[in-house]
């Protein structure tokens, strides 16, 4: 993974010192609440329902075992011994004290971590597919490009006071697990007919109050021009994005208002001044960044293993786990393992300090000391030897990290919701739990098969409910918590936004509602249709009828 050099270290240390000084000035009453607000936000610090919340950046989800151990000790020393993995592949801790945040940041800096631009109206953490670099069907490893974007976006002096937050995703794998199309900017790495590398650039996607799929602003952007072109997109947005209404301030609203063609013209007009200028990427820089992401020292191994086969036959639960949580690797004899953080009864995406230390040890022993946080709030070990699978599984079992449910109905994406978040209309964690309790049998879950269920506690859509096959949104109905259900969302290369099913439900009704939705699918599916396929064939009506049918 990328290793900080003297420049990166120096800037990070200066940032820590800067925030220490800002916090001191705020506590001394020299900065008003208002003035301190963007400063603390750009250092990841929110003031939440119960306490401040600190969001720590994990650039494109990649984290080393050393960093994970540091997080474990931080949650223990400054927090309540657990952390939450977010849909932006970041880590959140919920109980830090404001006065201690500068110390936390100093500790993070020791392992090249920080909370820079994890919040506020600036360019946020760039995300990518968790299988980058190890997927068998990869166009190009996205990680070096994410790193290039990380550096370009970090402390970008022009774009620290944008109309609203700004999110970029990069995808170089064939299957898109990064929800690229619902980002302010989505970048698909591609090759043109001459075999040259570049990007298809999408702009104006996003969730929240006005969910939209990004539109293509540039069909093929040669890699050299990546940063100057991004600058031009940002400039148009910074100058023309709406600042009068927070709900209309995202770039998607501007793109929609202007139309993609006009937006493109404006970008091109600005870009012609910087195109081929000094901001143009060089081969040396790309090579420098790529050198950090060369394949680890893989052993020459056969792609089958007798002992594992035997274990698969003898241990049914192991078989389930391999079936769901283990994916093919580009290197023979290796597998991609994803640990589910969706055990029933635990808030989706939560890890205890002990579990963090455990996974760090696991990564050291079995996966070249690295892990990846996924957009679905799970944790991937990207380079596990096939012959180690059973050991890894057994070890995970002892720490409750061997739940075999990846991609199943109980692998729920959920925002922290009303239990933590001051913006929430309703709780989301208990809803997730009630659904997980209803659907807890592996056979039944695999019978239902691949399906995504995403929950957000409010319109801000941190739980990405619009792109869940089943989406659940917390709404406020005369002061009471209700839930609106939507169907048909999808997050991959064919991203779709879900449609609202109808009037919202009380919390207790939700498991029944999900049950009815699933039953329509099970009755009507043809051959090996997934839930989303059946939904697309049938449309929303049969689901609606079943769910809202009056009891006789």
């Amino acid at each position: 993974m990328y290793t900080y050099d003297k420049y990166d270290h120096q800037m990070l240390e200066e940032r820590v010192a800067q925030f220490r000084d800002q916090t001191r000035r705020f506590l001394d009453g020299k900065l008003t609440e208002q003035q301190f607000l963007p400063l603390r936000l750009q250092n990841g610090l929110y003031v939440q329902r119960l306490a401040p919340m600190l969001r720590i950046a994990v650039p494109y989800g990649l984290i080393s075992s050393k960093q994970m151990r540091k997080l474990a000790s931080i949650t223990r020393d400054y927090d309540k011994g657990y952390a939450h993995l977010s849909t932006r592949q970041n880590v959140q801790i919920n109980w830090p004290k404001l006065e201690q945040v500068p110390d936390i940041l100093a500790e993070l800096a020791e392992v090249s971590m920080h909370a820079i631009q994890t919040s506020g109206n600036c360019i946020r953490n760039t995300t990518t597919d968790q299988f980058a670099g190890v997927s068998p069907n990869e166009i190009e490893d996205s990680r070096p490009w994410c790193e290039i974007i990380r550096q370009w976006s970090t402390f970008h002096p022009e774009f620290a006071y944008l109309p609203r937050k700004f999110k970029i995703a990069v995808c170089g794998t064939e299957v898109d697990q990064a929800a690229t199309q619902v980002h302010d900017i989505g970048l698909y790495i591609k090759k043109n007919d001459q075999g040259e590398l570049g990007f298809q650039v999408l702009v104006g996607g996003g969730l929240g109050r006005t969910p939209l799929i990004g539109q293509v602003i540039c069909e093929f952007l040669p890699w050299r021009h990546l940063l100057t072109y991004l600058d031009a997109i940002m400039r148009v947005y910074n100058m023309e994005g709406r600042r009068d209404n927070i709900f209309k301030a995202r770039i998607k609203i501007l793109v929609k208002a202007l139309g993609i063609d006009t937006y493109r013209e404006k970008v091109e007009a600005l870009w012609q001044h910087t195109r081929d200028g000094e901001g143009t990427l060089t081969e040396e820089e790309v090579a420098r960044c790529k050198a950090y992401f060369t394949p680890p020292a893989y052993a020459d191994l056969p792609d089958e293993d007798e002992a594992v086969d035997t274990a698969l036959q003898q241990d049914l639960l192991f078989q389930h786990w391999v079936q769901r949580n283990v994916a093919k690797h580009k290197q023979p004899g290796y597998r991609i393992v994803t640990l589910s953080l969706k055990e029933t009864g635990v808030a989706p995406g939560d890890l205890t300090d002990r579990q963090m230390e455990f996974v760090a040890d696991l990564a050291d022993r079995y996966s070249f000391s690295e892990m990846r946080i996924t957009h679905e709030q799970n944790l991937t070990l990207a380079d596990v030897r096939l012959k180690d699978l059973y050991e890894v599984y057994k070890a995970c079992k002892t720490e409750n990290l061997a739940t075999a449910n990846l991609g199943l109905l109980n692998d729920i994406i959920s925002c922290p919701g009303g239990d933590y978040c001051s913006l929430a209309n309703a709780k989301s964690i208990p809803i997730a739990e009630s659904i997980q309790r209803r659907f807890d049998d592996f056979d039944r879950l695999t019978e239902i098969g691949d399906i995504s269920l995403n929950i957000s506690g409010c319109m801000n859509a941190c739980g990405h409910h619009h792109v869940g096959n089943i989406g659940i949104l917390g709404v406020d109905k005369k002061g009471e918590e209700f839930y609106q259900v939507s169907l048909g969302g999808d997050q991959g290369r064919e991203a779709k936004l879900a449609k609202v099913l109808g009037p919202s439900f009380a919390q207790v009704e939700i498991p029944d509602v999900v049950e009815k939705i699933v039953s329509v699918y099970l009755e009507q599916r043809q051959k090996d249709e997934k839930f989303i396929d059946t939904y697309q064939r049938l449309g929303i009506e049969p689901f609606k009828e079943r769910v809202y049918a009056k009891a006789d």
Partner: protein
Amino acid sequence: MPKLIKDAQFVENDWQLVSAEAEPDEVLSLKASHLLVPFTLWQDHKAELAKLDAEIGVWFASEQNPAELLTEEEIGQLPVIALDFPLFKDGRAFTYAALLREQKSYSGDIRAVGEVLRDQLSYMLSCGFSSFQVADDVDEETYLNGFHDFSENYQATVIKPTPLFRRRQV
């Protein structure tokens, strides 16, 4: 009188900033040596303003992009172009300043006026601002330190057009 920072130090501020609501007659009878007038007023009364015994600069509201509103000739004549921050979080002028420097090669003084916070100074400087009008009660030392928060930056910027990746010594 608001304070003025230029070349990383506090200097005498002899510029009088004319409010957007000021009546033209009133402005034309002012006895100041240096006047910063709102863009629309300047546009409508250019000739009369030129007759005053004062240096004239123009300030732009945050929805006015000077790189688009001024002709090449006008840009060349203005000693000061001031960009207003009605609220510190309105960041449009960061881009306006950069465009004035990069596209229009403006070499005069670009001044940040309005709500200009200490913690924005280094970014403003990077984007091409060269002077800063700040409240009269600010602590001078605290503000001046604002220029030294960072010794490096990654991007191609107005003051360092060569991005770090072209300068980096591995």
